[in-house]
């Protein structure tokens, strides 16, 4: 962006340094006073993990014990995406190919890598049940595959319409909400998975979340990226 950006005045930097020193001192004191032997909630999680439907403690917390956090977090993600779309201009420019004339080598490599990334994404999704992994990691890899394709000129798969884009972005949240509310009709509380169904429901949620997260990350990337003409024009200014 702008090539010359003046620094803040010296007085501001001094004040900032003083402020940060103050916070730093407070933090050091507070952090060192954290009790070393407090078990936190780990014992409670360990005690109840068998009921969660998954074996990995972090996944159990994320998708069952504290699944409400995760639900709202997906809402933040979808919300931010809508926000980005709302200021990024029209849909069509969002989905315009980023690179019109992609490097043939890059393009070929991307096409080669993409299926493996989708596969890796699937593995991460499945592994999350008992090891580090899960929908977010899987979605990130899926998103990375999409970004790669976008960079190499495949940004707009033929099936993505405007409505289709909106569906893909929000499907994870909608499925999650549908299950969260649906279980209430079976007599439970919000997000209370019926006995024995936890594993299946968690998997359904995670699968659709993976799809949405992937789509969202690609959308965010493309919406924030500058069209190639604009980049070129600016590069021209710089010369």
């Amino acid at each position, binding site marked *: 962006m702008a090539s010359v950006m003046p620094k803040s005045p010296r007085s501001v930097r001094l004040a900032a340094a003083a402020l940060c020193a103050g916070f730093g001192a407070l933090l050091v004191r507070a952090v060192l006073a954290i009790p070393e032997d407090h078990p936190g909630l780990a014992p409670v999680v360990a005690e109840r993990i068998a009921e969660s439907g998954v074996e990995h403690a972090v996944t159990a917390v994320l998708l069952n014990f*504290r699944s409400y956090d995760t639900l709202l977090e997906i809402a933040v993600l979808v919300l931010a995406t809508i926000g980005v779309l*709302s200021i990024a201009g029209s849909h069509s420019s969002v989905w315009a190919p980023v690179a019109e004339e992609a490097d043939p080598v890059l393009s070929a490599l991307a096409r080669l890598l993409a299926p493996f990334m989708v596969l890796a994404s699937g593995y991460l999704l499945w592994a999350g049940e008992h090891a580090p992994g899960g929908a977010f990691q899987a979605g990130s890899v899926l998103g990375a595959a999409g970004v790669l394709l976008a960079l190499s000129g495949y940004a707009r798969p033929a099936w993505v319409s405007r409505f289709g884009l909106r569906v893909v972005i929000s499907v994870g949240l909608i499925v999650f909400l549908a299950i969260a509310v649906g279980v209430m009709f079976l007599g439970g509380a919000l997000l209370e998975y019926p006995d024995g169904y936890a594993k299946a429901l968690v998997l359904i949620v995670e699968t659709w979340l993976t799809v949405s997260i992937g789509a969202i990350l690609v959308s965010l990337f493309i919406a924030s990226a500058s069209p190639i003409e604009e980049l070129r024009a600016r590069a021209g200014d710089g010369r």
Partner: protein
Amino acid sequence: MAEALLAHMPALAVVVPLVAAPIAFLAGARWGRPVALVASALSVPVAFALAWLVSAEGEKLRYQIGGWEAPLGIGLVVDGLSATMLLVTAVVGFAVTVYSLGYFADKERYRFFWALWLFLLASMAALFLSADVFNLYVCLELVSVSAVALVGLSGQRDALVAAMRYMLAAILGSIFYLLGVALLYGAFGVLDLAHLAAVLGPDVTGQAAFALITVGLVLKTALFPAHFWLPPAHANAPSPVSAVLSALVVKGSFYILLRLWTDVGDPSYVPGMGTLLGVLGAMAIVWGSVQALLQERLKMLVAYSTVAQIGYLFLLFPLVEIAGSHVVDAWSAGVFHAVSHALAKSAMFLAAGAVLSRFGHDRIDGLGGLSRRAPVTTMAFGLSGITMMGLPPSGGFVVKWLYITAAIESGAWWWAIVVLAGGLLAAGYVARVVVPGFAKARDDASDLDVDAGRLPRRMEFAALALALAALALGVLGQPVLDLMAVGSPASGVIPWTGQ
């Protein structure tokens, strides 16, 4: 069936707008409108049902999400305070929705408004119900991102810059808050508010956590001197958004402060904190009012009025700390102020927005003869001004009454002087708008476009209805006072007593 439905009311308060939000997003420019209208209309009976439940029960209700009890799971807690805030959110939200249907006549340009708006309503409901410090962080982020996105929605230059400033302040506030949550968990090993209250002790880490959280939330609440982001954001947002930002969003972070300092701990947990917040509040009242007196644009004036009125919220903390047996008065004053200011300020912004969208400008010196050209809107503005001034009969008067009572009872009469002086300053800036409205109509004295068409009536009357509601609180406010006292520190118990 009805009983089962009632049992799920806390969840429904969040779920109704939260489900509607992605649906509105899918539905697009045209069909997002009815979706939003239905969802925000449904939120009103849900909020009333919760208020009724809490009143009937006479104590806190808990709803454990996922069936996992605290401290493992996340709870929704409905007490008088949260029910009151939900009720205000639902009522103001519905009025603003009705207003917005008229305001956003350009459907295509604002096609994302409805989804963002519903996300904001959902996140406010989630925030007011959450019983978990980390879940509150997620709620705060939902609130901030949806609020900022609504500010930037118009895509106009000033709005974008204001949104950016707001965004940076909001994220910074969230990070401070989150660090506080980390330290709280480190010190006490729980996240649920009630469990936290039970184990909270005089602990350096805990005190630092409270301080960090307070810094973060003060930033988000725009308490002086962290108010720098508020006036441009609230003034440059589309007017219905301005209304909700000033009426509800700043109250969200204040609500968490209130929970922490009066429900989990008390203002003496960190020595001097109550007084510091009160002094900043007093400075906000003076600074915000003086700035409002100097503004040239109506919406900036109203935004600075918000800066000032936020100050009143924070007088609660020193008075709760020192009021002794009269803690009820101080606590009720702050909460009642949150309610009456929400109604009055949203009315004021909606009125200002009506002026702006009908006459194409909001320069204060060009509003001569306004009372003749737009009597309903002028009336709405003037009536909400009465609440700002704290004159009877209005909700603002009850606030003033309670604060002065608490101040005199605890011998700290200087807070009473602050309250009264703030009322007089408010009269000054309200008069700046209302007085020229009475000026004789001369063609050259007014910039009000003679040919400007009529506004949709629902826009003018949405503002008037909210202003009248703020006024009615001053006489018929007892049910609200009763409601908010259920299960709160106002019922006479403060869980944590510092040593």
